[in-house]
């Protein structure tokens, strides 16, 4: 059996470096405001008339602002496996950008292991598959508190 080709579930939202993936934002070259998902036509800062944007990578690490799970199958266009597999979602604060970004939590984590303020890092994971492809999306991977204390880097 040949391995399925990994492709992003959406183009231009994140880099696909398997070791150091990052969300792709845009930054207004006039006022430096940051946008995710990317804004590329008009700056949304009401005090800015900027129309040019640089692509930037957002912080790969953040801390949990809040979290939950989903125990019932959502309607399409969510591409659910059959049978449905529950999943968790976290809202994660990025300190450098001062923003909160949603993402699914990587599978294999227990809800009881999560708490607000817990450090997480961005990884790529499977959103859904077809016969040839594995469609990837960003997910948050909790960093155990002890490991976070010893591994500097990222945004903390």
């Amino acid at each position, binding site marked *: 059996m040949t391995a399925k080709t990994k492709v992003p579930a*959406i183009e231009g939202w994140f880099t696909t470096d398997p070791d150091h993936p990052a969300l792709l*934002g845009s930054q207004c070259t006039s006022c*430096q405001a*940051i*946008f995710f998902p990317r804004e590329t036509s008009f700056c949304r800062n009401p005090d800015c008339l900027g129309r040019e944007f640089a692509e930037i990578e957002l912080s790969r690490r953040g801390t949990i602002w*809040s979290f*939950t799970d989903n125990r019932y199958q959502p309607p399409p266009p969510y591409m659910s496996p059959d049978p449905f597999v529950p999943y968790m*979602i976290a809202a994660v604060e990025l300190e450098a950008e*001062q*923003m909160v970004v949603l993402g699914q939590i990587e599978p294999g984590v227990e809800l009881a292991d999560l708490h607000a303020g817990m450090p997480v890092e961005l990884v790529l994971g499977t959103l859904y598959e077809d016969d040839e492809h594995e469609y990837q999306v960003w997910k948050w991977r909790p960093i155990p508190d002890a490991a976070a204390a010893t591994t500097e880097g990222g945004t903390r």
Partner: protein
Amino acid sequence: MSADHEVAILGVGMHPWGKWGRNFVEYGIVAAQQALTDAGLEWSDIQFVAGADTIRNGYPGFIAGATFSQALGWKGNRVASCYAACASGAQALNIARAQILAGLCDVAMVIGADTTPKGFFAPVGGDRPDDPDWLRFRLLGATNPTYFALYARRRMERYGATVDDFARVRAKNSRHGAANPNARYPKEFSEAEVLASPVVAEPLTLLEICATSDGAAAIILTSKEFARTRTTEPVKIAAISTITPTYPQTILELPGFATDAAVGLTPPDRPFRDAIAHAAYEEAGIGPDDLDLAEVYDLSSALELDWYENIGLCPEGEAERLLRDGDTEIGGRIPVNPSGGLACFGEAIPAQAIAQVCELTWQVRGDAAGRQVEGARAGLTVNQGLFGHGSSVIVTR
């Protein structure tokens, strides 16, 4: 805002909430006729119709003002139709108010009705990778309850709220709504029953998440001068807030993937939900201490607690204390959701903000049998629609 900018509520009507499975127009006509009867007016007296749209019922839903006018009988009145998600009803009220205050008409009908599908609200059909509402389902599987649960968990983490507090909100609202003839779920639930219902999105159970309902509400809005020819003490609308957020919007909002990035920017004086009510208070020239009751948008049990703080009933982090002290129960200092709220109704999107105002009207008239807030003279509604729609209405007598 001065009393010169007040308009009168001469009549209100509702079709009971439920899952009736009929065409939304039928419900709207029942509500419209009830409101006309309540006002002592005929359809021929209505000069302007503001319809709140529904996006899940085909073309007639997108042009609600004309749809209801045709159903009641074309007679050449002027119409407007508007959509602002859950805030659509407040927008329709605001449109009708502006017509009256501009002197363009004296008597207007504001109306909204919906027929809803079963289960989670899904985005409108088709492949639309440019629509954030489509993308949040596709890329995250983030349903509406996902967002409600994120807010609920935040209260637990930040203020020490417990699942018992959330269940207490639901139990309170079930007691309020038990005698409401328009409620879909007029049934009392104990806190234990709420906690025993299946978890949908931790920490929220099925009983704590607003259902999707069929229903309709209508209001006859008139100039104060016209109202005085019909009644000695008209019910008045003192304020309608329909504000958007202010950039940078730092609170995660449905259906977004992220907040605005605030680095290098000054966040607004008030977070969005606080600003919605603040704008209404400023317009009415009153404050939270002047209220006798409030109807807030309890999309989840936990969200009701957020609203206590957002509308200034208590400082941030103290909503659980207010609830535990019984202040927000009928008979308490400031009853919240005496109608039973969304917990007992479920949501009929274009009708819901109008229904909130119907409840305040019955309350300040003393007509809310079985759930009356004694001596109610002033009330506030608050609500928030997807994609940055604030909605708050102050009703006084």
